[in-house]
């Protein structure tokens, strides 16, 4: 008998693919999830050892059981007859039929359905983690610090909208792709940042979001190997992930990039990320994720913080600013500029009216400004900026960190 852990591992690895295929075959996400769940229950009872293709076994079993049930029920319900007819017309598990002859992985259809712009971003995230990631509602709720009922409701509503509003289950055409890829990449990035920004002590559940995001980014890269921004996103996440072991100190506190023990960086992940950055930038179609990945690759090239090639990072921020001209990018560029050209040049950028005006309520703007003022010896102004930053900080650990900086000024 195969133990429950082994079935659990198959579930995590194959759930996304199985639900995606069954959704195409049965024409309904709820029915697909139910059928896959059903098949895993059968697997727990029957598997003496793992079949050669566990995912294929699950798909075949799920489909057969769903159709058997409909056949029994179709004597009573016309809608089951219709569903059965449609399911059979859609072909077998091995015969995805696509307009235009393209053969797409069902998971790619699922990505674009879950990340359809007609769904709210938080619903896109929850659906993607549930259907493609195979996480259950309780796990997702814990990771996002939400009541389980709230998250369950969000998923139910999103699935109802997919069905009732007729959100199609298909891969966007080449012409639609630019507008549709953005939300899909944003979902994966959001999952990563939710895990990455988890405060120490939030526990493992949130950190697992980082691993899940990397897994999803790998999946997107496997499904769309020719999209430079997809590779850029994967590279960015791998490079951020490579530094994660060094982000936490022995006391569980946050360690910022300049103070990290670079020996604790994951060299293999960093090397993979750097190789991807080089590969996608060679295609000559830079996008925001690729450039952010390139910035992180420069950091990861430096054996110690002092060896960082800041002028190169400033040049990359110049490029990022032309792609995404936002005040937040301008602020990040100023931080790099402080290292390349000194704090006075950086402060001039931070205080530029378009940046200062837009970011007056943005806590990081006050922190950056305070730190530049400290370096310029303008202690009084620095203290005022720190005090404003503390007021704008919701996170207790971070507030304490800022209060210590403020106290150190002797003001």
């Amino acid at each position, binding site marked *: 008998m195969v133990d429950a852990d082994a079935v659990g591992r198959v579930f995590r690895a194959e759930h996304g693919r199985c639900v995606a295929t069954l959704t195409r075959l049965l024409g309904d996400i709820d029915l697909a999830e139910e059928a896959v769940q059903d098949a895993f229950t059968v697997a727990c009872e029957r598997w003496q050892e793992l079949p050669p293709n566990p995912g294929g076994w699950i798909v075949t079993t799920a489909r057969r059981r769903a159709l058997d049930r409909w056949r029994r029920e179709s004597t009573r319900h016309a809608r089951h007859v219709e569903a059965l007819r449609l399911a059979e017309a859609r072909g077998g598990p091995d015969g995805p039929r696509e307009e235009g002859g393209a053969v797409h992985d069902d998971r790619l259809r699922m990505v674009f359905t879950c990340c*359809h712009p*007609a769904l709210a971003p938080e619903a896109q995230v929850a659906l993607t983690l549930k259907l493609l990631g195979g996480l259950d509602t309780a796990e997702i709720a814990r990771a996002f610090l939400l009541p389980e009922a709230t998250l369950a409701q969000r998923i139910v509503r999103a699935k109802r909208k997919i069905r*009732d*509003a*007729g*959100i*199609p289950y298909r891969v966007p055409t080449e012409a639609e792709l630019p507008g549709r890829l953005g939300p899909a990449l944003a979902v994966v990035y959001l999952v990563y940042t939710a895990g990455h920004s988890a405060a120490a002590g939030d526990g493992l559940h949130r950190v697992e979001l980082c691993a899940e995001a990397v897994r999803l980014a790998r999946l997107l890269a496997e499904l769309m190997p020719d999209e430079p921004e997809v590779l850029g996103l994967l590279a960015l996440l791998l490079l951020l992930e490579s530094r994660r072991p060094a982000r936490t100190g022995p006391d569980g506190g946050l360690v910022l990039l300049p103070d990290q023990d670079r020996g604790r960086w994951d060299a293999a992940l960093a090397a993979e990320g750097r190789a991807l950055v080089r590969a996608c930038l060679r295609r000559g179609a830079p996008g925001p994720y690729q450039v952010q990945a390139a910035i992180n690759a420069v950091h990861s090239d430096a054996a110690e913080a002092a060896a960082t090639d800041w002028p190169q990072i400033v040049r990359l921020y110049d490029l990022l600013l032309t792609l995404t001209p936002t005040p937040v990018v301008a602020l990040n560029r100023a931080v790099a500029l402080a290292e390349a050209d000194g704090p006075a040049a950086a402060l001039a950028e931070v205080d530029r009216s378009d940046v200062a005006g837009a970011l007056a309520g943005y806590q990081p703007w006050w922190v950056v400004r305070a730190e530049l003022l400290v370096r310029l010896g303008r202690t009084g102004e620095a203290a005022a900026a720190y005090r404003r930053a503390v007021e704008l900080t919701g996170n207790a650990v971070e507030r304490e960190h800022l209060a210590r900086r403020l106290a150190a000024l002797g003001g």
Partner: protein
Amino acid sequence: MKQYLLSVWHDGAEYPTPPAEVMEQMFRDVDAFNKELEASGAYVFAAGLHPASTATVVQSSGGQVTTTDGPYAESKEQMGGFWIVKAPDLDAALAIAARGAAACQGPVEVRPLQDESED
């Protein structure tokens, strides 16, 4: 084929009054859009409404009918007109709505009609 309500929204109980040449352009664009809808077979029905200040609300409770000056929705956003269109899925309906929004120079809300066969 599913059917969708494409409603056009604006702010205020009265319509904004853009310059005459803007209005004329809008009428021409909406007219062309309606013709295009009919030619493509997506058209089911369409209408422009008098402003929300002309609306009246009737309520019936326990046989008691009350009539009040409308509109019912207390929001500043009001519906100015609508199309009912046929489309194979939401993406197709959204593509139609995008052309409608450009023609009438206002936001268009896309909402699915319940299928007659739905139980």
